């Protein structure tokens, strides 16, 4: 695991290679090193990390997140692993909820294919350049992005004798 100093060195390496505006911050929390990256620079940063002198050659997870009260709301997290050095590194980015776009990383990490589709399905983040961006879990004609926090949870009220008169014509 990179420690806090190692994380700063990695961040500096990224700044040198990609540009100073790419890194918006670093986070070292509970022994976990995380780079916070501007959404436009996700692809160059991941390509740099993939092809660096000490590369992170596998993407273990790519997932979305919704930080509802905060802005920008949506987050996309990438978890990188170097099997050789047994090191992990997180890369986080934050996107606004209106028209969120990111560059796909499928050409760097083929495993990102289905995971980007899932993030698209659940959070509505559009990955530009993805070879086949369709819904993966929900039906194709589904409307909305169900894992967003402002999405109604769905379901039906459970009827008991004490509340069945509150739901008129519940039997229909």
């Amino acid at each position, binding site marked *: 695991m990179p420690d806090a100093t190692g994380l700063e060195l990695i961040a500096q390496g990224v700044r040198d290679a990609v540009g100073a505006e790419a890194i918006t911050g670093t986070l070292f929390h509970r022994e976990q090193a995380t780079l916070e990256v501007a959404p436009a620079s996700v692809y160059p940063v991941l390509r740099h990390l993939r092809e660096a002198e000490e590369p992170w050659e596998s993407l273990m997870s790519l997932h979305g997140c919704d930080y509802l009260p905060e802005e920008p709301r949506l987050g996309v997290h990438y978890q990188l692993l170097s099997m050789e050095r047994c090191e992990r590194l997180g890369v986080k980015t934050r996107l606004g909820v209106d028209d969120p776009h990111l560059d796909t990383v499928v050409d760097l990490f083929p495993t990102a294919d289905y995971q980007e589709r899932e993030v698209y399905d659940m959070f509505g983040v559009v990955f530009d350049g993805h070879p086949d961006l369709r819904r993966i879990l929900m039906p194709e004609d589904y409307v909305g992005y*169900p894992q967003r926090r402002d999405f109604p*949870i*769905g*379901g*039906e009220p459970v009827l008991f004798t004490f509340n069945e008169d509150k739901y008129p*014509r519940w*039997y*229909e």
Partner: protein
Amino acid sequence: MEVTRTPVGKSDMRVRQLRAQQMLRGELAGKDLDEYVEERLLFTRLETAQNWARKNAIFPLGFGLACCAIEMITVIGSPRNDLARFGAEAIRFTPRQADLLILSGRVSIKMAPIIRRLYDQMLEPKWVIAMGACSSSAGMFANYAVVQGADKFLPVDVYVPGCPPRPEALIYGIMKLQDKIMGTPDMGWRERYGAEGTEEVESPESGHA
């Protein structure tokens, strides 16, 4: 089953054996022969006989949805629970040959059209058992992804509660279904508590169930 049968006369086993021998040799005639034949006849209605055959030869569809499927497989496939006692152990893996659909698990909205298609492909007469809390009423999955009860899109005959139901419960459900096939469904608690007449049935005047 409604059966009428001529009562067997009082005679001991040996006499009847001798009479059977005579019958095979062609030595019985007249009144003796009439009596012999009447003793060996069963009378019933064709529908009843048909239903009796149907209830004792249910072919479940080999179809599992979620964790309840494990219990369903133990019921149908294992000698411990031995569904062969009730004539429903022959699983068919094509809906064309099956007549019982056991919904074993939660029904997601993406799975619902597929289940409906399987149900439509099954030949009449066909029955559906909603096994477990999820397929009966979505159970704990009150959310966007799960159909809130499988009876939203196909008719369900028997609901088996439980999460998952024990194998005995499913066998009991299948026996309830057999009663239903025979046309003598047990009214359960309605009978116990004297609540006949409270069933929700279609009424043409009100326009709803």
